[in-house]
């Protein structure tokens, strides 16, 4: 049980500290940036509603692009819904969060979580294949993209393996799973995965800018 | 038989697989004359499961009681060739529980060593009574 003790203890602690420090750092660091001086007159009075509107509308694809982006869009949604379900609705995970923040919510049966987990892993692989085969996407991908993919997929894959076991002891697999989560937590605020908490700030900012310019959003 | 109930009460994970195992053992007994012993001692039975299994197999035509290092209750179930054996120790505690798929459980047949020992005892009795008669 030594590896599990290390994973559940110091490794996870490090990951969580890195996550908290990094997240607060990135959010404050970005929010406190000075806006670029804009000397033009505003077309419309920008406001909070404009920000909210873009946060909402950018969740869908503009009609002109719908056809071309349908495949990655579906995969993207599946991946994010899958991540939400497996991370937040698996009972042992809920107990983990309860231990951290004291809140608890209902979960789903394990077989459903497992099914969703397998789909999510499959979607993750499909997205990587697309990244590697689409010339444009491949060209604009850097280390951050691939590493972020890896640290996101690692907990999913290791999580799926736990009930299958492959002859490895449960506590070892659990420890590896937790270690992969610690790695994810450590990386999340500093790479492209920071979109987890920055996505709505950036969309809101886009909304404000476009509103000011009088663009149709 | 009732389907394994998904929710509530206690799970019934063991009864059906064991009944299947018994059926395959009967195949082997009929086809090849091969006997099978199923040790029920190391299976993770839930509350009431063993009783359910016992109920499903029922009691057939033969019941035997053995007294050797404690009692043993041996009976054929309603499925001929399928025997239920409960071995108790001298304190009356269950020491082993088996399903045997065979024509007659080995332990019911007289054992060579015991037959020989019995013959010796009988021989001694006869020679002693002959001695008495001669006197």
């Amino acid at each position: 049980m030594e590896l599990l003790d290390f994973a559940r203890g110091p490794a996870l602690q490090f990951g969580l500290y890195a996550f908290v420090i990094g997240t607060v750092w990135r959010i404050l660091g970005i929010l406190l940036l000075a806006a670029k001086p804009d000397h033009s007159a505003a077309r419309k009075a920008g406001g909070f509603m404009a920000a909210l509107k873009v946060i909402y509308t950018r969740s869908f694809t503009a009609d002109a692009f719908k056809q071309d982006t349908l495949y990655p869009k579906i995969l993207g949604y599946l991946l994010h819904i899958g991540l939400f379900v497996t991370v937040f609705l698996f009972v042992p995970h809920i107990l983990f969060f309860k231990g951290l923040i004291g809140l608890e919510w209902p979960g789903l049966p394990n077989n459903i979580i497992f099914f969703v987990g397998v789909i999510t892993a499959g979607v993750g692989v499909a997205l990587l294949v697309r990244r590697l085969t689409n010339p444009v996407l491949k060209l604009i991908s850097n280390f951050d993209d691939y590493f972020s993919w890896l640290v996101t997929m690692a907990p999913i894959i290791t999580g799926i393996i736990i009930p299958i076991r492959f002859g490895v002891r449960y506590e070892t697999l659990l420890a590896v799973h937790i270690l992969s989560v610690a790695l994810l937590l450590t990386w999340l605020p500093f790479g492209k995965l920071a979109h987890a908490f920055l996505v709505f700030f950036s969309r809101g900012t886009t909304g404000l800018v476009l509103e000011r310019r009088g663009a149709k959003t | 038989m009732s389907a394994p109930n998904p929710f509530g009460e206690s799970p019934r994970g063991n009864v059906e697989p064991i009944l299947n195992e018994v059926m395959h053992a009967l195949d082997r007994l009929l086809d090849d004359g091969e006997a099978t012993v199923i040790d029920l001692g190391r299976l993770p039975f839930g509350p009431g499961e063993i009783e359910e299994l016992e109920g499903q197999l029922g009691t057939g035509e033969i019941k035997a009681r053995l007294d050797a290092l404690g009692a043993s209750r041996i009976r054929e179930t309603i499925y001929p060739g399928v025997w239920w054996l409960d071995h108790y120790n001298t304190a009356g505690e269950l020491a082993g529980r088996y399903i045997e798929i065979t024509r007659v459980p080995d332990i019911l047949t007289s054992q060579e060593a015991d037959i020989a020992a019995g013959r010796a005892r009988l021989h001694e009795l006869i020679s002693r009574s002959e001695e008495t008669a001669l006197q």
Partner: protein
Amino acid sequence: MKQKPTLGEVLQAKGVSRRGFLKYCAATASLLALPPAMVPRIAQALEAARRPSVIWLSFQECTGCTESLTRSSSPTLEGLIFDSISLDYHHTLQAASGEAAEAARHAAMEENRGNYLVLVDGSIPLGNPGFSTIAGISNVDMLTETVADAAAVVAIGSCAAFGGIPGANPNPTGAVSVSDLVTDKPVVNVPGCPPIPTVITAVLTQFLTFGQLPDLDHYGRPRAFYGQTIHDRCYRRPFYEQGRFAETFDDEGARKGWCLYKLGCKGPITYNACATVKWNQGTSFPIESGHPCLGCSEPDFWDDGGFYRPVSTARIGGGAAFGTAVAAGAAIGVAAAAMSRRRQQKTIKEG
């Protein structure tokens, strides 16, 4: 050295019939988790087996392990096994005391040099030899002396196997396990608090029957009994998969016998045979009685952060540290923004 009688001779002298012996062999096969087809081999081996001499040493312990063993009431098949071993020293059970007891131990060691088994319950304090002594001899000295000519050592219970309660944080006596001290002999760990009596007798029976020790896992535990987790063999496992959990000890889930994972059950990470061998002559085991597994056969189970904390919760420090983390993150964030602003100002000025 006088030749000890074989088990066959012992049973014959007791007037046990061949049927009785076969029944005994069948029970032995069950005990050793061997297939029933092994019964003839067991019969052959047991007939010729000679009673091994056993010396039982009790160190920093609560006598719960001895209780566990003796409460598998006598005379039983287990009792018969004890008839067929020669328990030459056990300071709780033996009639002799004081110097006579120690003389019996020395005599057994002398007579069975290289062939006797040493059973140990309790951990050994290294902090101060005076913490635990028997007949004025410190535990570590007695262990070293007794083990020197033993065939093998069996550490009974979690204290002897892993340090147990005496070894729990902050380990005031400097308690260590048997295997910390005995490195040149085979050591079999039979952990549990207490271990299942059947498992203790099984190890002895294996030695008696086949003259060898069982196959062990990486913690030195017999695989036949510690090869699978409680969770994997638990009859409540289907409820875990279905997501049906007892939330408290007296809610609907508890009454319906649902999974105890949320109440801190350590079944998933605990390797033991409770779910199949069970306790009190096969009556039940803790989970069947409605209480989560404490994980008592695993190392340091006392220090695992609480019996009622679910397996999946983190074992990490409290909220104050996270407050510091938030503050640190905020400080870096503000500093980074300020630096950026300064650079921006500079760029604008330089135009």
